[in-house]
């Protein structure tokens, strides 16, 4: 039986039998590939870059996963077009950034496979390790978190604690965070910082990340439920222009994760599976997170109603950045602008303003832990965004925070 003859013809060429169904459209292999690459190129070509006198440098974030595997190949093709084309390249130079997560997930084989993939490309590769956020050469002081009857405080850590290796501090940080949801949230914050840091150190003005439409839909719902609605346009937008000197672009934002894995499969692009905190979670396990639930929710809905992902992403795409967002104070942990009402929302668990609290502290320091000098304590309730306040309240006291958190 030759089933190929019975399949509907491709919607585009109207000649060949279709091989893949993307929402309601059926494509043959070559028309699918053309459509997929065109969407990517048009997204990348239209994306903005910070104003500089020269062409910007592009940093491609590569985790090894499906989406960033496709991103790496597509960016490489974009940057080095065939010999016949005379198009002016949009980017001056392309670099590959890989964040090594082996300190917490301990998978050396995965790291090896990732480096093997990167070596296939003729671009400079930068590797950063997650524990770099605890590097003592980069940061001279670390803060730890304290809660007492007066509220939530950050204080400079004691000398003896910071003598531990960066890796130990990183592992302790994640041990000190109670829920899987908060662990995943903290990991995202750390990666975000490392991305920006790597871009600045290497003179890159644009970072490309592999967020697919599916991932953006999941992140939109996830971040809204985490209380990041205020800064959502920065977190999932076509390009995040929150930082003046480095923009984050998402050129795969019009492609479903199904399209991405099919493209990888067609081209034989091998990906590496990087575990997350909720890998192999199931309905009964303790490691289940909001992120895991949200992904299940979206992929389940999408099966019944194939417009789910585009509906969420196009709705979220219409969100405008709040006028205050660019002038508001930035969160100490995630760098996103703090919503005007973040502290009011949490009023029932927070206390007075910073000034009043410090005054009260000086008047009544007897209640504070004797080990910590009171002038060292800084109330941070108005210096964190809503979702980072949630993270902090889910973190054990005395947990040492990454070096980018400074008071």
């Amino acid at each position, binding site marked *: 039986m030759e089933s190929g003859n019975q399949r*509907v013809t491709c919607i585009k060429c109207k000649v060949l039998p279709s091989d893949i169904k993307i929402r309601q459209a059926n494509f043959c292999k070559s028309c699918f590939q053309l459509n997929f690459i065109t969407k990517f190129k048009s997204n990348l070509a239209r994306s903005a870059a910070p104003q500089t006198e020269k062409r910007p440098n592009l940093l491609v974030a590569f985790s090894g996963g499906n989406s960033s595997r496709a991103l790496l190949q597509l960016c490489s093709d974009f940057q080095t077009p065939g010999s016949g084309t005379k198009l002016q390249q949009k980017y001056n130079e392309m670099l590959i950034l890989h964040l090594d997560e082996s300190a917490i997930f301990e998978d050396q084989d995965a790291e090896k496979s990732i480096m093997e993939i990167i070596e296939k490309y003729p671009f400079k590769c930068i590797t950063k390790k997650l524990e770099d956020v605890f590097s003592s050469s980069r940061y001279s002081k670390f803060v730890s978190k304290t809660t007492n009857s007066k509220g939530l405080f950050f204080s400079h850590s004691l000398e003896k604690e910071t003598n531990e290796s960066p890796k130990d501090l990183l592992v302790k940080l994640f041990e000190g965070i109670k829920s899987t949801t908060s662990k995943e949230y903290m990991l995202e914050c750390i990666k975000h910082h490392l991305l920006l840091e790597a871009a600045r150190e290497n003179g890159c003005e644009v970072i490309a990340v592999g967020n697919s439409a599916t991932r953006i839909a999941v992140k939109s719902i996830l971040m809204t439920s985490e209380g990041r609605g205020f800064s959502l346009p920065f977190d999932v937008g076509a390009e995040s222009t929150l930082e003046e000197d480095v923009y984050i672009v998402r050129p795969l934002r019009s492609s479903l994760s199904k399209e991405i894995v099919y493209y990888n499969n067609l081209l034989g692009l091998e990906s590496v599976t990087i575990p997350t905190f909720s890998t192999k979670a199931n309905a009964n396990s303790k490691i289940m997170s909001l992120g895991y639930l949200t992904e299940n929710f979206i992929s389940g809905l999408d099966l019944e109603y194939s417009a789910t992902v585009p509906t969420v992403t196009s709705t979220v795409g219409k969100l405008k950045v709040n006028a205050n967002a660019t002038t508001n104070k930035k969160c100490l942990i995630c760098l996103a602008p703090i919503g005007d009402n973040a502290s009011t929302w949490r009023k029932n668990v927070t206390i007075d303003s910073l000034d009043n609290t410090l005054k009260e502290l000086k008047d009544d320091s007897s209640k504070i832990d004797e080990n910590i000098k009171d002038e060292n304590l800084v109330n941070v309730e108005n210096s964190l965004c809503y979702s980072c306040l949630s993270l902090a309240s889910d973190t054990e006291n005395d947990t040492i925070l990454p070096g980018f958190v400074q008071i």
Partner: protein
Amino acid sequence: MNINVEFSGGMELLFGGVAKKTIQISPTFGGNPAKISDMIIWLKDNLLTENVDLFIQGDSIRPGILVLINEVDWELEDGPEYELSNNDTITFISTLHGG
């Protein structure tokens, strides 16, 4: 009959790290020609090393797993009702984040 099964995108973690395998299954199940849904149950009973919820939800495959029949999206064939032929290649690819 012989069926080539392939797992990628994290699916291999559910099957003891195996990325490719040729399996022998009966050409008929309950007197009817073997369908892909029969093979999925066979995989669950014989090869799956992790919790069944990660592979199957309800009476079909978990949403977010792409199934290809000889490199063609199974939605364009008959989905779970597709009748297997000898030497078919069935590919399971996870599109989910972090496996």
